[in-house]
């Protein structure tokens, strides 16, 4: 395949090549352009239209963000809520993922289809419906209310991706270890869990990002009592200069950049796509 691939690529005409490069350049501008443009604003005094260069450079917007109590509070809330959400999600979902991947039980098919059906209700409508219920449960504007909203968004990642990973482990590997005298627990720890680790890692990364970046639901049930970093953005962009929003965006994007570099290989390797098909 690889060999054939190269020979085929060589035969393509310069015109095809040129249009390919144009397409890539256009895609790069389309995808990266807005991000770079916003990021640059975090370091400039002002940018006057139609200049392509900023008026001046400065670090002052960063101290503005850290010294603003509302913004600092939002950063703190996000850093507390998201780890709690991910841990809860792991405790609740990983056993279910193992069961879905390895066992056959009553209602399994219903469970699998139901999980996906639940995911097809439009997000914002679901949040409005949840908020209606929250009024009765007294969860409106509470810490627990926001945690539950964010937890819901992680379930799909934390059950599906590890389930596919557990299902893909060859049974005979575990049986061989058992035959060699390993205990059930040792087999689970050294073989099952280790082989499923890439899938679990991707699930944890995706769940963390889903929680950390969740904005619509947390805004609807959390504001005006509890603001996380993404929900703070809604008011930030209206009340602060664009440079402050740029600094805040960079801070908000930092965990994502860090986590992609950890899990990039596995995500491109298909763990994510694998997990999104009912098995």
């Amino acid at each position, binding site marked *: *395949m*690889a060999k054939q*691939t190269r020979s085929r*690529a060589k035969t393509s005409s310069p015109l095809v090549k040129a249009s390919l490069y144009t397409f890539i350049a256009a*895609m790069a501008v*389309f*995808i990266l352009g807005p*991000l770079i*443009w*916003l990021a640059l*604003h975090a370091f400039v005094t002002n*940018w006057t*239209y*139609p*200049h*392509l260069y900023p008026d001046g450079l400065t670090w002052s917007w960063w101290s503005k963000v850290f010294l603003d109590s509302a913004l600092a509070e939002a950063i703190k809330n996000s850093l507390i809520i998201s780890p709690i959400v991910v841990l809860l999600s792991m405790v609740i*979902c990983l*056993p*279910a993922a*193992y*069961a*879905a991947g*390895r*066992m*056959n*039980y009553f*209602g399994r098919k219903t*469970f699998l289809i*139901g*999980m*996906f*059906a639940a995911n*097809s*209700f*439009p*997000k*914002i*409508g*679901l949040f*409005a*419906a949840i*908020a*209606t219920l929250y009024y*009765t449960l007294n969860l409106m504007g509470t810490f627990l209310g926001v945690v539950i909203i964010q937890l819901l968004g992680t*379930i799909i990642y934390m059950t599906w991706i590890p389930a596919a990973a557990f299902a893909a482990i060859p*049974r005979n590997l575990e049986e061989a270890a058992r035959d060699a005298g390993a205990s059930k627990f040792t087999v689970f720890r050294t073989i099952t869990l280790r082989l499923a680790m890439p899938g679990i890692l991707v699930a944890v990364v995706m769940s963390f990002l889903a929680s950390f*970046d969740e*904005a*619509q639901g947390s805004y*609807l049930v959390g504001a005006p009592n509890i603001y996380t970093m*993404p929900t703070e*953005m809604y008011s930030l962009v209206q009340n602060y200069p664009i440079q402050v929003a740029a600094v805040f965006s960079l801070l908000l994007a930092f965990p*994502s950049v860090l986590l992609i570099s950890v899990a990039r290989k596995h*995500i*491109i390797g298909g763990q994510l*796509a694998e997990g*999104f*098909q*009912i*098995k």
Partner: protein
Amino acid sequence: MAKSAPRLSFLGFSMALPPALLVVGFVGLPILIGFTFSLGFTTGPNRVVSLIGQQIHTKSHWWGTLDAYRDVIHDSRFAGDFALTLLVTLISTTLVILMSLGIGVYQRMIGGRIASIMSTLTLIPLFVPVVISSWAIHTFYAGDGFMRSFFATFGINVPTLTSTTSAIIIGTIWTSLPFAILMVTSGLQSIPDALIESAQDAGAGFFRIIRTVLIPLALTPIVIATTFTAIGILGSFTIPYFLGPNQPTMLGVEISNFFGSYNRPQQSIVMAFIVFMAASGIAVAYIWANVKSAKQSGRI
């Protein structure tokens, strides 16, 4: 997989229970209760929200009332909002799937360095919070944004896209692209070389292979990508909120406005159900595709 676990296990059932209960309690139940609220059931779990909200209709028949639905449908802005929501969903989903197919087929048939640059590039939006990307796109295409500044250097005056429907479409494509590409690409990659080669040996051309081998064999992931993209766009809030015009806007923004700013929760829930009805048609296709592929490989 089903073959290797023939016994029905009680342990498995109880392990699967916690997330299922969470989904039933905080997704299924609210949707059900929300539906009764939209029909004018204002007691029980809907009592508090009915006291807080304005223009609440209480049921006049044993099955409820359609007054809140009438309110929404007769609202002068609703028709425009609904049309815009469907239009954006249709255009964006079509473009996203076409781009995914193009990139996926290129990667499968030709591959190489260009393909890997492309896949890395298009994966980036997956990791950018939607509030950031929406705001970044807002500033990029704004009146004083890069697009206008760049073209102004050459004396070209391009229109401001921010706060137009085009900006919503740009934003939804930007955010939907990675997932669709991942799904479509992984579907195309799993097609065995032998099938493509035998089609080539039989004299099939490039486009004929795409039409008769690649797309039919990867149909399930393509349908999943399409439905996921469409449902996501249909219910989106942040992108139209930051990028769209004030009026008309997508229903996601109106649902949030009616619930919060206007304090008309019943009308907000009604809109949610109207969006849901549009989405459920799409959802059926999605579940059908999943069940079909599971059956084919003998997993159910």
